[in-house]
């Protein structure tokens, strides 16, 4: 019954598996024989861009991944960073872009499910999720459907499993009309000496399958859906999207954490992209061992599945464990207590091969390293794109000042990228597990670390317009802003994870963007001394040849030693002084102001001086730690005027107005709405003024005391001359209502 070996391998079949003729020739040479269809399927997924990182590896190698706190860097399911008191933070961000575009609810839901498994596979209990979402223009006919579906999927999965979704970011831009981005970040906590890895050590040990049954869903999700761009046939790929079951994942999570308290787990890996194939090959690869699998033992959802289908299925909520010989029954009993499907499906073997049998016949026999690491290494070319010249020639003299600065502010406050995302985060349970100290809607979310005095702050950031105009500095700014956001909450940045969303790496211009962005990110991370401990690359984000803006999303994790000393962006009381840390230059390139009011996407983008940035951050942190500040707010999209507005209107209680006078001679629109980097708006009791000024001097940070909180309006003047005065209740209403589906 050699039904699984009978298919003849034709060039069409090879092409249908996303393998180039050159790659196929390489397989023939490595094996010294023709692979059977199952083996071809294995090469197809393992050599896909999604699993092999074949185009990105050489660049990713340049990122700083080490540091005194790093327990586990890239290469495992997630990164692990020590936070003291015997605990470590485990985190990663991952994309689920293409599935979410063609089936938004399930695509986003399984994105959440996948990243959660990456975290608890490491032995950590997930304590928070963030989402970085990017949609097409708000008025694009598909946007409401995609937005609603994605939010619904995240809400459905995260709420059910009981891990709070505590924040994130949502952007709208035409470049995502045909390819949305759904990047999901998860943070978990683990005892620092109880980190589990994806290893298959110890020949003779049992390979145990646990979780949902394997079905025919998601076959070729990684190789065909995630590793090619969209075209007219995109809708036909819907069957490659998996279907999520958060209830089973909840059982799997609790069962795993219970199992990890036992002594018998040797290694563990999530069956995510490329399912059973990648988990078995990667675990063996990391340990220099081999694995023997009997596919007849795998719990199946339907009859008649072939080895090909079983190996390539991306059914969700499944794990592969290596368990010490002799403890098989203990493991099975524990998983059955949680009503999970489980079976011993194989053994670890000495010889570094993966050997797969099915119904008594040999289905696959492949050396591990051939599959994991032997794809043809050919550096794809890079080339600076021609568009960059053209888009960096902003001539401000041709941009008229707005007739009313107040109206300009209102337009910005109501614009989709700035307006409140409350209607979205109210659909997420952001409080479950009682750790969320700072709820969504501030610069960063803050989670307490139970059983300690500490807390962790997390953010997700990327201004992709900046990255389009200047990939190197745009990525640097993403790192700087991520750090600034966690610093504004009172935390010291300790680690970074990234999700690099780009177009097709087969185009030299796109790969150049990637190269530059990774270089900029690495540069900034090295300067701030924060390691990149995990990440994910998502290429082929383009439709009919149109790529998205390069979008290297950065998530920064920061540590607060005292969970009571966190800070938020809203003004706390009337009569506080307001000051700006950092300098405001005449920089409008790449700004939300130019985009919203003039429809311009032109650079040069704001300069980033890493040294100045670091000084501002160090000062801000010191001021918060000394308890001198009432509020801190990063100045980003929409500039100073929007930052001030947000501080007025985003508190729990009634909004608090402000009266501000800016002493500067630059263009007033650049002063109000420009996005100069390394600035933080702070408010504080006036008794602290002298201490704050002297610390600013000591740290070498320019500080301008600009005004005072109070009243019912935001009133901004420049050198004594009033340029805008707006009712804060009206600003709040615009901010809160503009993005709500029924408010538009």
């Amino acid at each position, binding site marked *: 019954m050699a039904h699984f070996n009978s298919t003849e391998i034709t060039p069409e079949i090879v092409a249908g598996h996303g393998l180039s003729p050159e790659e196929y020739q390489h397989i023939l040479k490595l094996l010294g024989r023709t692979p059977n269809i199952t083996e071809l399927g294995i090469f197809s997924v393992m050599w896909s861009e999604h699993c092999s990182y074949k185009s990105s590896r050489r660049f990713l190698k340049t990122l700083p991944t080490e540091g005194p706190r790093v327990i586990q860097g890239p290469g495992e399911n997630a990164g692990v960073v020590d936070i003291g008191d015997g605990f470590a933070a485990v985190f990663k961000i991952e994309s689920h872009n293409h599935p979410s575009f063609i089936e938004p609810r399930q695509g986003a839901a399984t994105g959440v499910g996948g990243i959660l498994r990456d975290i608890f596979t490491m032995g950590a209990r997930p304590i928070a999720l963030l989402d970085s979402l990017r949609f097409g223009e708000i008025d694009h006919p598909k946007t409401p459907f995609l937005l609603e579906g994605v939010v*619904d999927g995240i809400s459905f999965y995260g709420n059910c499993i*009981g891990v709070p979704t505590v924040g994130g970011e949502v952007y709208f831009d035409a470049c995502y009309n045909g390819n949305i981005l759904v990047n999901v970040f998860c943070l978990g906590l683990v005892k620092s000496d109880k980190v589990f890895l994806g290893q298959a050590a110890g020949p003779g040990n049992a390979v145990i399958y646990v979780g949902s049954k394997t079905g025919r869903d998601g076959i070729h999700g990684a190789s065909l859906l995630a590793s090619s761009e969209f075209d007219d046939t995109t809708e036909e790929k819907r069957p490659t999207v998996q279907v999520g079951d958060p*209830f089973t994942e*909840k059982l799997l999570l609790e069962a795993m954490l219970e199992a990890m308290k036992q002594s018998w787990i040797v290694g563990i890996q999530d069956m995510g992209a490329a399912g059973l194939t990648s988990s078995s090959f990667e675990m063996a690869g990391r340990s220099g061992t081999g694995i023997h699998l009997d596919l007849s033992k795998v719990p199946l959802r339907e009859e008649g599945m072939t080895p090909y289908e079983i190996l390539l299925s991306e059914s969700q909520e499944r794990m592969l464990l290596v368990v010490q010989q002799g403890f098989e029954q203990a493991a099975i009993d524990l998983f059955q207590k949680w009503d999970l499907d489980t079976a011993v499906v194989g053994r670890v073997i000495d010889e570094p091969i993966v050997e797969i049998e099915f119904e008594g016949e040999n289905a696959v026999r492949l050396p591990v390293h051939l599959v994991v690491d032997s794809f043809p290494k050919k550096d794809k070319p890079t080339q600076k794109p021609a568009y960059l010249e053209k888009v960096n020639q902003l001539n401000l003299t041709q941009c008229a000042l707005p007739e009313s600065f107040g109206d300009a502010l209102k337009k910005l406050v109501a614009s989709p990228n700035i307006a409140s995302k409350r209607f979205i985060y*109210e659909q997420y349970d952001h409080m*479950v*597990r009682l750790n969320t100290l700072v709820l969504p809607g501030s610069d960063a979310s803050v989670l*307490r670390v139970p059983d300690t005095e500490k807390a962790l702050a997390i953010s997700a950031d990327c201004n992709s317009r900046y990255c389009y105009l200047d990939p190197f500095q745009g990525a640097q700014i993403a790192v700087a802003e991520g750090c600034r956001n966690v610093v504004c909450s009172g935390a010291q940045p300790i680690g970074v994870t990234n999700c690099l969303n780009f177009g097709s790496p087969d185009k030299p211009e796109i790969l150049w963007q990637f190269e530059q962005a990774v270089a900029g990110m690495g540069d900034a991370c090295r300067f701030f001394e924060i390691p990149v401990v995990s990440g994910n690359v998502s290429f082929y984000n383009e439709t009919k040849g149109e790529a998205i803006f390069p979008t290297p999303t950065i998530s920064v994790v920061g540590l607060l030693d005292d969970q009571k000393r966190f800070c938020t962006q809203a003004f706390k009381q009337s009569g506080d002084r307001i000051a700006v840390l950092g300098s405001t230059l005449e920089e409008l390139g790449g700004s939300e102001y130019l985009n919203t009011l003039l429809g311009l996407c032109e650079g040069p983008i704001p300069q980033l001086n890493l040294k100045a940035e670091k000084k501002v951050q160090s000062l801000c942190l010191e001021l918060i730690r000394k308890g001198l500040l009432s509020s801190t707010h990063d100045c980003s999209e929409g500039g100073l005027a929007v930052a001030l507005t947000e501080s007025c209107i985003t508190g729990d209680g009634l909004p608090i107005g402000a009266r501000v006078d800016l002493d500067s001679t630059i263009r007033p629109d650049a002063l109000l709405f420009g996005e100069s980097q390394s600035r933080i708006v702070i408010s504080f009791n006036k008794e602290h003024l002298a201490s704050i000024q002297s610390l600013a001097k000591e740290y070498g940070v320019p500080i301008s005391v600009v005004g005072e909180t109070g009243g019912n309006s935001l009133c901004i003047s420049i050198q004594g001359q009033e340029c805008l005065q707006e009712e804060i209740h009206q600003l709040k209403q615009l901010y809160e209502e503009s993005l709500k589906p029924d408010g538009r």
Partner: protein
Amino acid sequence: MNCGVVVFPGSNCDHDVYHILKHVFGLETKWVWHKDRSLKGFDLVVLPGGFSYGDYLRAGAIARFSPIMDAVINYAEGGGRLLGICNGFQVLVESGLLPGALMRNRSQKFICKPVHLRLENHDTPFTLGTQSGAILKIPVAHAEGNYFADPETLKTMNEQGQIVFRYCNPEGTVSEESNPNGSSENIAGIANTRKNVLGMMPHPERCADPLWRDRDGQVIFKSLIKSYYS
């Protein structure tokens, strides 16, 4: 005072209420597994929030058939104090221990936010030491919290003092605007006629830890302790 927190497959606020009972109020607290069949020795049993059985079919509809539920029903009928929060409330309604039904929110969406509650009956073991008319700020987090009962049942419940919490605005006015999910008469929490069983959609355990600024949820746990010792 011995407390039991029932863990159904899919419960996810079980750890939270356990933490509040055990670590904040220092009460003897134990887990009760859904496959257990006894609730002997407990002075308070909590059915926690979450998504028991994934909320598949209908929230609470499958959990009512869990092995532990016979014991829960016997315990309640024997006068034991039983608190159902969110999904726990849904289970109590599905199992017939409390009247009415909990339907999908009016908005058709999950809602997570702090709401204000007006205390309608201070004469229950869950609300002792408070005053009717008091206003509490407690978060909700649910997709199926739209309470429904027919007019006759509502009338009886009103007469019997079974309506314990109503959604209101910060000033205590019960209005359509302050109704987050479309519940009949803005009902947020109800008791049985004997007042030993309380079901509520808002989560008191989410605002009972002294670490938070909002601590109104403490009222319910303090009241249970007070009624136990009086």
